[in-house]
């Protein structure tokens, strides 16, 4: 009689029941992991493969055009992965900057006093949001390679800049070292500005507002005049351009698709951020007699953006993850590099784990920063999500 009594007492005590459930869940989870793991090692052993990341130092034979890491065919796979990561980051950064600008513009038009303009942007946003990104991406890619002219008849929107079905070419400094004086000048400007910002006498003067502009623009200009970097201009030779810098049609297509798609979502986020700004703030600004532009720029937008920052960050993250669709048009991003590496080496498990690990750390890192940001905003007593 003692045993069932003890058991039933344990069963009816919530804390021990909770422990039982947790042990059960943990056990099931462990069993599942163990099952998958033994299958994996067994299958790999049967194929005479092990999990081994040493293949990364092997020579990769595939080639892809553009990359910041300077990868060429014959370099190691590790280098290829870094180049792929570089390309992912490149398109993500460019995408984030352009998306923010376009989304802000869309959001403002969406709230403009003109009903026709509001309706048109609303329709546009609905159209873009309700069609798949991949479809838009493939469309832009086809559009660029079929509809744009050949390099010989390339469009020249700005002198020295050419747009053709081989991509965009533009003048660029010949080497990165040529930019060194400019970079130094910008750094000097920023540090002087930081020092002057803390100087009380400057603070009160009218100069104060122009200071950042002067210090950010003047030193690079001076550097440009004293030590002009040697610029290489693109020239048409034979069937394609030589010299200058270029981006591929794939990059342009990916950027176009990402910016257009993601900005439609972000516009709605920013719009609701703007609508969430307390009415009293706007009325107070009106009572002070602020003109409409200043009301928007100094009162509404700073508060709206603070509200919108958490959702906008997660949209930046989804833009970065969505850039993985690049694989469908052959832009050499991280996913594309792993796909090609898998077909060259057969190291599927390793490549996919690298892929997952990179994206996961990117997301967790962003989440961490957002957390820190949210806590700071909370402490200041501001609006936080």
């Amino acid at each position, binding site marked *: 009689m003692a045993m069932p009594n003890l058991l039933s007492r344990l069963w009816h005590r919530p804390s021990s029941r909770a422990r039982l*459930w*947790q042990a059960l*869940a*943990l056990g099931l989870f462990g069993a599942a992991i163990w099952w*998958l793991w033994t*299958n994996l090692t*067994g*299958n*790999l052993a049967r194929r005479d493969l092990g999990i081994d990341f040493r293949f990364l130092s092997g020579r990769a034979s595939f080639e892809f055009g553009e990359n910041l890491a300077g990868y060429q065919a014959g370099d190691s796979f590790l280098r290829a992965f870094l180049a792929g990561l570089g390309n992912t980051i490149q398109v993500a950064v460019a995408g984030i900057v352009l998306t923010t600008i376009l989304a802000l513009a869309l959001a*403002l038009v969406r*709230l403009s*006093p*003109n*009903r*026709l*303009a*509001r309706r*048109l942007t609303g329709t546009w946003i*609905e*159209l873009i*949001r*309700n*069609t*798949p*990104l*991949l*479809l838009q991406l*493939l*469309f832009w890619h*086809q*559009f660029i390679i*079929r509809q744009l002219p050949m390099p010989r008849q390339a469009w020249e929107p700005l002198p020295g800049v050419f747009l053709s079905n081989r991509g965009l070419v533009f003048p660029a400094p010949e080497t990165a070292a040529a930019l060194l004086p400019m970079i130094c000048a910008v750094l000097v400007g920023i540090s002087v500005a930081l020092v002057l910002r803390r100087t009380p006498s400057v603070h009160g003067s009218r100069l104060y507002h122009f200071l950042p502009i002067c210090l950010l623009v003047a030193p690079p200009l001076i550097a440009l005049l004293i030590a002009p970097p040697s610029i290489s201009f693109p020239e048409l030779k034979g069937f394609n351009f030589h010299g200058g810098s270029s981006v591929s049609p794939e990059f342009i297509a990916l950027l176009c698709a990402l910016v257009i798609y993601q900005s439609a979502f972000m516009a709605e986020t920013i719009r609701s951020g*703007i*609508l*969430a700004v307390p009415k009293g703030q*706007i*009325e107070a600004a*009106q009572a002070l007699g602020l003109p*409409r532009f200043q009301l*928007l720029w100094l009162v*509404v937008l700073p508060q709206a953006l603070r509200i919108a920052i958490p959702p906008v960050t997660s949209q930046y993250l989804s833009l970065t*993850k*969505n850039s*993985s*669709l690049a*694989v*469908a048009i052959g832009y050499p991003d991280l*996913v594309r590099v*792993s796909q090609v590496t*898998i077909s060259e080496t057969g190291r*599927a498990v390793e490549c*996919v784990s690298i*892929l*997952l690990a990179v*994206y*996961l750390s*990117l*997301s*967790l890192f962003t*989440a961490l920063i957002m957390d820190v940001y949210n806590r700071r905003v909370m402490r200041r007593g501001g609006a936080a999500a």
Partner: protein
Amino acid sequence: MKGIYGIPKKRFGGGIFDTPGNALFSLILLALLVHWGMGVWDWTITRGTWQAETAEQCARNGGFCWAFLRDRWRLILFGPYPFQEQWRPALALVVCLALLSASVSTWIWGKALGPRLLLFCWILGVPLMALLMIGGMLGIPRVPIRLWGGLPLTVMLASVGVSLAFLLAIALALGRVSKMPVLRWMATGYIEFFRGVPLIALLFLAAILFPYFVPPGWSMDTLLRAQLAFALFFAAYMAEAMRGGLQSISPGQYDAAQALGLSWWQTQRRIILPQALRKVIPSLVNIFIAAFKDTSLVVVISMLDLLGAANASTAEAKWWGLYIEPYLFIALIYLIFCSAMSAYSRGLERRLGIGER
């Protein structure tokens, strides 16, 4: 809608011609709109080609190639499904859409027998759809899964994926807010993992790595693996939405349930979940829209869903080089489905009175 400047509608809000500046701006916009509309008319109607055998004949007029769509629309809609048998996926699609729209109708849910009738229809409908798609019985020839494609595949991937994800997401969301730390950590780990990786990486995992993780001899169709990957992926997003709903339930509800002597399961099933899920229906619909669009990613593992079939429709030499026609056609289909769902979600949001400040 109120304007951003907080100025009442009468003075600023809704106008098109109310102030001189506004009127000028509207006129410019209207002119652009008319110009653009005439361009579209010219391109599709005036220069559009209805009778042509090849893409080249279409290109001579320089307009929209209707002839291509007339020739290929069934391939785009049904993919490689045998041509003679395409009435079957069409019928299955109609049944599926009818069941889905009945299931989300608030009118049916409001009737006394409604939910039971729905369940009954689903129990009848699912085997019927399976029979239509697979065949091999009652004199209907068998069609292997690898020949499924087009719109039915897209709808299936999205709706089956989301249904499975829904069940998993309830468990995950309950785990995520559970007081038991181990369950909470596991649910959190799952959600963060699947929300942190791109869907494409998961599809690769499903397409390439799946055979490594099961005992030798097990095999599963790529379609089903992709289906599983979708379900696992969207479960994480749905769970996160449901967590919001669960956290918005006031503690008094739990206390009241406990006072009535309800067990944990009873409390969740009868009291908490119905309220929590009701609150997040609009966000769940949004996730369904995202899922519907994201099924197009199966193109990268070479499956012929709506987008894949549209790509394949121009593979033949005579239509090679066309891309605007198939892409616009399927864009319209995606647009109709997604707009209908988002209109439904907005209507529901208004009716439930949530999402209002």
